């Protein structure tokens, strides 16, 4: 168990990653580097202040900076830039989420930390491998027309799944009670007689 606040370490991770990426982007394009810097500020605010909107804005700005920095002439360089930014974005979002988990004084189980980190790494690796494979297929062919409706299809699937989740899981006022265990020990005024219940027969809150 880790006890304490994780805002600052998570913010440090995000800031270091953001600054490194911005500097790398500056080497390619000054404008992209500046946008990356602004994105880093947004991400840092999101982590430290617990503001989800700021994190989302920072993420999108960072992606935009990558688009600006893309060379558009060499696919390999573009892929490297995009992959680096993708790593930064997933790391930032994971760090932000972790800092949200421990936003106040709390105990954080080490297996949660490890599980989250492993999942993020697996997602990045899996995503990059898949994207490289797709790219290889796409580039091997001439520009395929069927790829155009694909984003719309994914969008529709995503919204459909979301709607199903929200409709399925919205259950309010589900009541369940567990029976109490009536202990017969008193601590403050000496041992109670065996026929004396811990809970008074007159419970002022229960029978109001």
């Amino acid at each position, binding site marked *: 168990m880790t006890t304490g606040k994780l805002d600052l370490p998570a913010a440090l991770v995000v800031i270091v990653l953001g600054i490194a990426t911005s500097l790398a982007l500056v080497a390619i394009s000054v404008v992209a580097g500046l946008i990356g810097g602004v994105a880093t500020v947004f991400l840092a605010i999101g982590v430290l202040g617990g503001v989800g909107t700021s994190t*989302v804005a920072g993420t999108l700005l960072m992606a935009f900076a990558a*688009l600006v920095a893309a060379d558009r002439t060499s696919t390999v360089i573009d892929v490297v830039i995009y992959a680096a930014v993708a790593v930064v974005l997933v790391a930032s979002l994971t760090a932000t989420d972790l800092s949200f988990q421990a936003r106040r004084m709390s105990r954080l189980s080490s297996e*949660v930390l490890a599980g989250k980190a492993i999942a993020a790494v697996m997602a990045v690796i*899996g995503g990059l491998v898949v994207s490289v494979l797709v*790219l290889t297929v796409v580039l091997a062919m001439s520009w395929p027309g069927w790829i155009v409706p694909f984003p719309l299809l994914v969008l529709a699937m995503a919204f459909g799944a979301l709607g*199903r989740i929200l409709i399925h899981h919205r259950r309010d006022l*589900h009541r369940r009670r567990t029976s109490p265990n009536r202990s017969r020990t008193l601590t403050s005024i000496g041992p109670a007689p065996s026929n004396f219940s811990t809970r008074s027969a007159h419970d002022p809150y229960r029978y109001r």
Partner: protein
Amino acid sequence: MRRLELDSVHRHTTVTYLLAAHLLLAVGSLIAAAFMRQPATLVIGSPSLVILLTTLLDPDVGRVSAAMSVDQPRALEGDTVTLTATLQSPKAVAIVDAELHPPTDLGYDGPLRSVISLEPNQPRTVEFDIVVNEWGVVRLGHLTVETRDRFGLLSTLQRFRVVDTLRVHIHEAPARSLMEPNRFRRLVGSHLSAERGGGCEIADIRPYQPGDRLQTINWRISARNDEPWVTLRHPDRSTTVVLVLDAFQVYGHQRGDAFRRSIRATLGLARLHLNAQDPVGLLVVGMGIRWFSPNLGPRHLHGMTDALLDLSTTNWADRGRHRQHVERLVPPDAVVMAVSPLTDRRFSDVLTKLLLRGQSTNVVEPLTNWRNYRAVDQIRSLGPDAFTARIYALQQQLRRRTLSDMGANVVTWEEHQPFESVLLGLRVHQRSRRLVRS
């Protein structure tokens, strides 16, 4: 360890901002790849796409069942109690965020939030340390359990209300000096009666009379006087005590205030007299009535203690009892010990009725800090605080004087004065009044 009853009142699933972020990245990169004819942009959104697909394939975050227990069934004011929440789920849950929300009058020692993960059907416990600062019947708040998937895209919030309450006992005012009653039962106890009979304390000697027990002959005096003399002794008797508590006091939420001291004193007196084999009754008079007829034994003490703890709530009175003729509840031979700051006319009326019935009545009056009195705020428009406080103090003095004139022994109790010294003062008061009578 006492198990607490929980009431699951709320379950709600939402999407988090992370889902929006990943969705925007994935869709944005796809659109850019398709419409801008830049397939390389697919790389930037591919991890997000994987994360989204992983989550959407298994959208059930998992339902967690919770049980709670407290390490001690009752607590004493200032104690730290440990609440243990046991969480379990039929399926593995990546992130379980359990947070206890105690009421504001409870303190805490350490974090109130734990983030763990759950294996299928494997219960895990999290502990929260709560500091109970206030006496009374204390609510424990509620527990929220937020479950999230591994990537934190979906979140299910469950809220469990702790139905059971915790009884937090007040520190009793330590009392050692029994009051000196003028009425006794015909049973053995700890009070020295003025009668002659079998006991320990020597009362007098006199010549032997037919019928005297041979054990009472004082051989030393008999030898000196050449005739049998006997020793007379004071018998030890018990008495019936009825404690009358003023529950009209409504300013009972500050440490060291009159109400709190009244309850501490009542508890101390109850224990003291029960230990001395005196049957003790309790009459709580306020907007309602709570009555315990005189009795002996620890069970009776616990019952009275619970009744006093109930005073921290608004629902403490016996149903169906009315304040009219409340004095008839008190047995005629009982000694009345009232604890009241004498701030309310209705309570002093009750004492007046008891005195008119010829009841032996003693009053301990915890002095009030008028600045804290809530009623001062209500009539502040009448004038400055000091003036209002003077009016209240005069009314209090008048009630004290009236009761004293009617035969009650009234002693005042300063805020930082030990209760034992108040009892000693009461004994002095009782003796001087007895001397005046004789």
